[in-house]
Each structure stands twice: as structure tokens, then as C-alpha cells.
């Protein structure tokens, strides 16, 4: 059955207050390689049908949500009944808010437009050439290319007819040489592979492998460190994941005030030495995402009741100040804070900052340049202390120039503390995070110089 028909039949069969059906159709094609040979590939097709029942019960509105893999015509009535019964048996939902009704957006009746391996047609030829060059130059290549088309329909008994199509993709490349003693990485985000320039990736990989000709051990310590945009994205992701309004208001977040008395949040507090902005915006050019909330289950910052609510720009940091925390409408009401919904992308920028990573390197008299960050995990939620590794190349900068490579480190630092240690930033551009690739899509950030970055211990990995 077509997604639209599934939605019409289930919502028509739902004999309760409201029923929202979210159908997601996804096609994906992927290629993976190691030691300059293809190792796996896939052409994937997936569908999910999430059915959400809203049933008036004693004391409020109860909900239930069940997700089915595919639905046949004869299943629709049973499914509508099953989800309704589950809701009827539940207690009133804590996250009640008025449901959105009678709203249409997007090309409702069009079919899912699948991606196919054809999307790689040019990339595959260029990759083949790069593999050949690399094999003759004793460089080993490891990497991954993925392209996804996802169509989402949100329809309801109450008249929601919303549709959004999200393309996403990326290519990642690790280059190793000299018996794998040298290693570097490059990643590029894409929506259709038209911007993928393999020759440019090849050049970047070779330049950095050459930088590793000189290598020395340096001790753990605090270093002025230059981060490419992708590492900045990885570093700040946990901060956004930890910015739920409800936890902050309850006193159990880095964004809770700890000055004694009743818990309040740090909204309004200047947390950065520079006028940094961090925000989500569904209309950001090149990072477009759904302009309405899609939630197949509730959590701390999402609510089933918010399905179909409009998404606009949500400012998390403005001019260096914490300006909002993430909320559902219900949590906003419970915490007496503004409703600022989570978005599907994020952008970091420093107004008036310009220049590239190379320009930032020139500004450093003595410091380090990292390539990527890896295995980032929360150590202490009270300070948002994170730990992680540097990966695939740390370089020493002297007098504004890269002079060679150094060992990797385990670092321990907090992105909230680092906001106060921004020495400079470059221009914001669309980037590919590494650690959170696949979890976090659609990010723009500038490269940055952060002062006193805590390289806690040495890692002998390369």
C-alpha cells in the first residue's frame, strides 16, 4: 500500500480523539572500502509506520505509539484498534498540549523518490583512479560513501497532511602510509554527491601525510589548539544533547544555576568570551530540514503532542549568551520557560569572523592542529566534562606554520568551559563531523583556535 493510503485508512478507522500516523520511507545506497579495495556495499530500502493514538481518559488525554514495519490493507483496522486500546489503558500523558490540526505542507501525494547506486556513478570512477594512484604510491585508503533519501508523511485524523523529503550523504576517507605509521582523514557532507571532488580529497590526504614526515613525541599538557570545523561540530554536539530545559530547571544539568536556593537555569548568562551564535534553522541554505516537528515517541525535549508544530530558527546561544534550552510545549509550560523546539540541524558562527583553517594556523605562534576527535563521551554531567581522543594526525605549529606531527592524546575538557577560551574563529561552512557522523547530520561551523585545551594523557595509537 502507498504511504498516503495507509495513513487515510488507519486514521479513518481510529474511533478516538485523534490519531497521527507517521510513515517514513527510506532508500540508501552505500560503499565501503579498506586497504584500497571495496569491502562491503548495500542498497537498502526501509519503511516504518508509526501510529499514535490520543484517547480522552479520566483526568486528561492518554497516548500510545506503536511502530510497524509495513502495513497491508487488511491490517489497518486492527492496527487502529490495537493502538487505541493501548492508549485507553494508559494514564493521562504528562506532556499534553493542544494538537495541531488542519495543516498541509509539501507534496503529499507524490511517491518516495528512491536513491540508487547511480548516485555514485562519477564518484566510483574517480575513486577507482584514486585507488590506483594510491596503490602505486603505497598509500592505503579506507573509507565510506553513503547516500540517503528519506520521505516522511505525517497525517492525522485531525487534518494534518505534512510531507518532507530529506536527502543526506557523506564521504569519508582515511589515508595511511609508511606501514600505517602515518594516518589522516577527510570527510565531506553532501546532499547529492555533485559537490564531491575526489581529487581535492586526494590532495588533502597527501599534504597531511607529508606533514607527518617529521614526527616527535610531546608531553600531555594544555595547548593552544586549532580545530577544523568538523571537530568543532563533534565537540559541541554533546552540549546540545545536554541542553534540555526540564533537566536544567530541575537543577541537574550543566545549564542549571548552582548558586544555592531553588534551581534556576543559566539562560541569559554570558557563557562565551566572544559573541558566538549557536542555532538550529530548517531554512539554512544547504542544510535544509523539515519545517515541522516529527515525533514518533516523546522524550525530554520532544512530545507526541507537538507533531506538526512549525519549526523556525531556534537560538541556543546568541552573542555569547545562553539564550534558550530545548523544550516541548509541555516542558516549557512545566518549567515556565519559552517553547524553543529542537531542530534537525545546527549552526555555529561568530559574526565578523572570516578566513580558513590555514588562516587560523598562521595566527598561532606555538600550538597544535588536530584533524579529528574520537570516542567522545561524557565524564561528568555537572561540568559537562567530556573525554575523547585526537585521531588521524596532530600537528605542531610554530610561528604560524605546521612544522611536523606529534603523538595523539586523550583529552578531557568541557565544551561549556571552552566557550570562554575561544581565541579566534574562521568563517562558518557546512562540515562533516566524524565521531557523530550518521547521528548528527547537517552541521555548519567555523574552524576555531581554543586556548589551553586539556590534552590529559598520551595515546600511542596512530
Amino acid at each position: 500500500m502507498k504511504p498516503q493510503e495507509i495513513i487515510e485508512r488507519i486514521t479513518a478507522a481510529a474511533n478516538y480523539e485523534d490519531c497521527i500516523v507517521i510513515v517514513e520511507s527510506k532508500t540508501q545506497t552505500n560503499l565501503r572500502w579498506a586497504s584500497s579495495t571495496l569491502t562491503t556495499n548495500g542498497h537498502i530500502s526501509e519503511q516504518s509506520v508509526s501510529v499514535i493514538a490520543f484517547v480522552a481518559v479520566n483526568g486528561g488525554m492518554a497516548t500510545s505509539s506503536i511502530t510497524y514495519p509495513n502495513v497491508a490493507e487488511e491490517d489497518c483496522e486492527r492496527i487502529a484498534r490495537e493502538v487505541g486500546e493501548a492508549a485507553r489503558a494508559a494514564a493521562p500523558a504528562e506532556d499534553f498540549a493542544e494538537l495541531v490540526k488542519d495543516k498541509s505542507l509539501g507534496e503529499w501525494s507524490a511517491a518516495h523518490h528512491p536513491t540508487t547506486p547511480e548516485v555514485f556513478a562519477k564518484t566510483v570512477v574517480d575513486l577507482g583512479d584514486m585507488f590506483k594512484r594510491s596503490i602505486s604510491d603505497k598509500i592505503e585508503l579506507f573509507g565510506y560513501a553513503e547516500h540517503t533519501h528519506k520521505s516522511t508523511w505525517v497525517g492525522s485524523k485531525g487534518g494534518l497532511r505534512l510531507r518532507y523529503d530529506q536527502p543526506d550523504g557523506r564521504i569519508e576517507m582515511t589515508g595511511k602510509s609508511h606501514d600505517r605509521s602515518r594516518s589522516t582523514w577527510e570527510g565531506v557532507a553532501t546532499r547529492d554527491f555533485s559537490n564531491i571532488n575526489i581529487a581535492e580529497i586526494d590532495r588533502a590526504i597527501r599534504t597531511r601525510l607529508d606533514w607527518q614526515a617529521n614526527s616527535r613525541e610531546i608531553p600531555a599538557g594544555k595547548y593552544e589548539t586549532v580545530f577544523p570545523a568538523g571537530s568543532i561540530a563533534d565537540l559541541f554536539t554533546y552540549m546540545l544533547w545536554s541542553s534540555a530545559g526540564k533537566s536544567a530547571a530541575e537543577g541537574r544539568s550543566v545549564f542549571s544555576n548552582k548558586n544555592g536556593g531553588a534551581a534556576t537555569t543559566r539562560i541569559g548568562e554570558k557563557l562565551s568570551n566572544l559573541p558566538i551564535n549557536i542555532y538550529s534553522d530548517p531554512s539554512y541554505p544547504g542544510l535544509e530540514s523539515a519545517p515541522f516537528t516529527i515525533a514518533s515517541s516523546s522524550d525530554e525535549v520532544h512530545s507526541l503532542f507537538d507533531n506538526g508544530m512549525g519549526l523556525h530558527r531556534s537560538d541556543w546561544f546568541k552573542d555569547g549568551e545562553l539564550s534558550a534550552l530545548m523544550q516541548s510545549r509541555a516542558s516549557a509550560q512545566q518549567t515556565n520557560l519559552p517553547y524553543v523546539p529542537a531542530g534537525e540541524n545546527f549552526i555555529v558562527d561568530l559574526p565578523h569572523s572570516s578566513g580558513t583553517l590555514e588562516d587560523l594556523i598562521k595566527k598561532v605562534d606555538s600550538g597544535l592542529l588536530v584533524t579529528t576527535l574520537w570516542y567522545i563521551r561524557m565524564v561528568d554531567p555537572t561540568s559537562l566534562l567530556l573525554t575523547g581522543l585526537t585521531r588521524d594526525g596532530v600537528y605542531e605549529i610554530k610561528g604560524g606554520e605546521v612544522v611536523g606531527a606529534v603523538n595523539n592524546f586523550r583529552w578531557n575538557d568541557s565544551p561549556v568551559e571552552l566557550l570562554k577560551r575561544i581565541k579566534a574563529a574562521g568563517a562558518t561552512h557546512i562540515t562533516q563531523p566524524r565521531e557523530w557522523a550518521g547521528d548528527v547530520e547537517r552541521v555548519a561551523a567555523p574552524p576555531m583556535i581554543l586556548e589551553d585545551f586539556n590534552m590529559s594523557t598520551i595515546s600511542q595509537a596512530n
Partner: protein
Amino acid sequence: MSRAQQVDADFLALPRQAVCQAGIEMAQSLGASHVDIRIERVRTGILQIRDVAIETQSDDTIAGIGLRVIVDGAWGFASSPIVSIEQARLLAQQAVELARISKPLSTEFIELTPEPTYKDQIWVSAYEIDPFSISTEEKVERLVGLNAQLLKSEVVDHAEAFTMFVKEQKHYADSYGTSTTQQRVRMQSAIEAINIASDGFESMRTLAQPAGYGWEWMGNSIWKWDDEIAELPTLLAEKVKAPIVEPGRYDLLIHPSNLWLTIHESIGHATELDRAVGYEANYAGTSFATPDKLGTLKYGSSLMNITGDRTIEHGLSTIRFDDEGVQAQEWDIVKDGTLVGYQLDRRIAARVGQNRSNGCAFADSPSHIPIQRMPNVSLKANPQGPDLNGLIESVDDGIMIKGDNSWSIDMQRYNFQFTGQQFHRIKNGKIVGQLRNVAYQSITTDFWGSMKAVGNQSTWVLGGAFNCGKAQPGQVAAVSHGAPAAIFEQVNVLNTAAEAGK
């Protein structure tokens, strides 16, 4: 004794044989030398209770077919959510086409180690109560009850309960004639008590470990939930008032509720052979334990004996046949401190000249290709070793660590850093109170080399996780790790407050 469960009738009712036969025949007619096909259905339920109300409820089923071929030594893979004969034939065409597209980029000629064929095999894991047969209300009642118990304490300002339960059904068939149908169930639950003070907050989580059980896990017969919940506020109150650790070197007595994760990261991942030869170099990483060191690498002290298995009852990685039709096995990975074995699938075994896979192929969904994933990797108890009290009494100046929390390890599995839930200070063989802000950091072989005492079987617990990640596209697997309590000499301990510049 577990009551014998059966594969659900509605999964058995799917036209499994006909669909697989159609896919296999079509792929063979198009030139495939190997075909494997999986029909899968995986149902996952999640409940998150915040204080005494539901925050998250989900019940999510994925289903479909995944079909993999080898054509002229190159892989091809295709998947679909529709389980039908027609669809299986279409997937065969797509997979063969993808293999042909891939051929020019492939310098490795894929071969697989042989395996006997197993026809019409059926297996079900050892659980008693299908968690999906219990209503959401009954589950919520149990979890809210435990949270409410915690919230009675003055020290507990908030409580969080999380439970996740999975039923995984797989029918596998390949072009050699193997055909298996398997069903397994697993449960994970954790409850956290949170204290909020004027200068910050502190929390403590239960030590209960995820395992291959059904809803019976949430009673009091397997894990004593009521007892643990009764004790948690006292432990939290003590932690809130505890001094911050002085960084430096300490003897660590590590409880299995913490040690399982250190085993997972520093041994489990390091002895995946696909990873050791470089297949994960762009993503999960490589390993210091490269194949040239097999039989010679001194991994740890002579008390260190590590096995891999897919056979232990209630193990999260336990199964009868893997996703390449290989029968489950048990083998040595580290013997008397020396690296002696790896985790294999049929391709990687063939690549390094082994004659049989040890059965570690797994795909987490019909949409993903089977790859080498972790078996249950466990540390053996020392039959002559002490019990937990004996271990505590043998420590002069150290810390006992219970429960896992933060974890991170580098891409070659050398440098790791872990935290925990409970840090009990030991002086002169006695526990003298808790500490706060403890992290331990070490290098894999230094750490295992410093293991000077290993507890006996009475200290052994099967721990584990649902969320082990590997591969691109990302795959998630559940895996168990059994461990006794053990003592590690003079490990580097960090103060996490100082690390944060506080």
C-alpha cells in the same frame, strides 16, 4: 530451569522457505557463487519513567529481507521491508548488479571458509516470559513502584527508570543448504537516583546487568531489584558527602559490574580480526593486537584467561547459528596472559588462512550486511582465588569500583579511561567510605599486566551492553562479558573535577 519457549507462530507462518529458495535460485541463475538470505523481524520496546510518570514509550518493529551474494569474488547486498517471493527475486537482481558495479573497485577476491550444512534447525533462547506479552501498564507499574520507593528517601530528589526489551527473530538460508530459524529475547533495565544540592548534583545507578532474559528479569528471583533499590539511597547519601579523590596511583579492586566494560573495550574490540587487519580503520579503528603477534603477545598477567563464546545461557551474543550459518562455539582468546585467538567470520577466516570461522557473523537488521561482531568475551574466575571479602582484605591502600559509567578508548585500543558508579576507599583491608570524581586511565597491556589477584567463581557476574557499535552503515549489537572481581596494581586515577579545571 527455564521453560522451553517456541518461535512465535506468526513468524513461522511467513513463507520462509519459498521466499529464500526464490532469492537463492534467482541469484544463482544470474551468476552468484554464494547466496545468503535472512528474513528478520526485530521488535524493540522502550520505557523511560521520569520520577513517577512515563517520559518515553515506544514499541518499534523492523522487518524485511536482506540478501547477500558473491559474484566473481565481489560482494553485493540488497534489502527490502517487503517479505515476498517477488521481492526476494528483485533483491537477487539488485545484489548481483551491485556486485558487478563493485568488481572494478575490488582487488580482494572474496572467499569464505567452508562449514557443514544444517537443515531446518530451530532454536530459541532461554527466557521465560516474553516481555511483549506483558502489558505496558504492568511494566510501568513495576518501574514506577521502584522509582516511588527511591523518592521516599530525603536524599533522592529525582529518580529515572529505563527499560528496553527486544525480541529478535531470524530465518537464515544459504546456497549450500543450511536453513535456520531462531528467536531470542533480551532485557535491560537501569534505575538512577539523583540528589540535587545547592552546589551541584550527584547520582547513583543500579548495578543490574542486561542479559538474555524475558520479563522474569524484573522480578526478584534473578536480580534482587527490591533489595538493590532499598540500598541505593544510603549509597547515594554517602556518595554526596564523600571527599573528592586525590589523583595518583592506587590499587584498584574492580567489581564485575565495572570490569565487563573494560574487558569489552580493551579485549573484546581489540581481538576482532577484521579490525586488527584494518577493515574498520576509517571508523571503529584498528588494534594493537595484530595477527603477527598471535601466540606471542603478552596481553596481561599469567592470571589472565579470556574466552570467546556464543554459547553461554542468557548471554547477549548467544545464538545457535550465526548469520553465516556457522554453529556457535567457545574458544580461547587469551591463555595464561598470552594472545592465542581472534573473533572470526567466514570471510576474514579465509583471508588469514584459518580453516573455519568461529561463528561471529551478525547483522543487526535485515537492512545491514552481516559482519564480524563480538561474541561473549569473558574473563575466567580463578578457582584458587579469594571471594570478594578476601580480595578487599588483601588491599592496603586502594579503591573498589562498582558499576559502569563513562568509557572511552583510542582507535588502536591502547589508552582508555573509565569512571563508575561507586568508589569505595579501602585502607588496610577495610572499606572506609566512598570517594567522588574518580576516573581510571591506563594502557591496555599495562593494565592487564598489573592484574595481581583474580576472585573465585563466587565473585563472577555476567555483565554486558545492548549498544555496541561497529561498521558503516552503523550497526548495533548486544553482547555479554562475564568477569570475576579482580585487583589491578598501581593504576593511574584522575580527579574528574580537576580535569574540568575546577
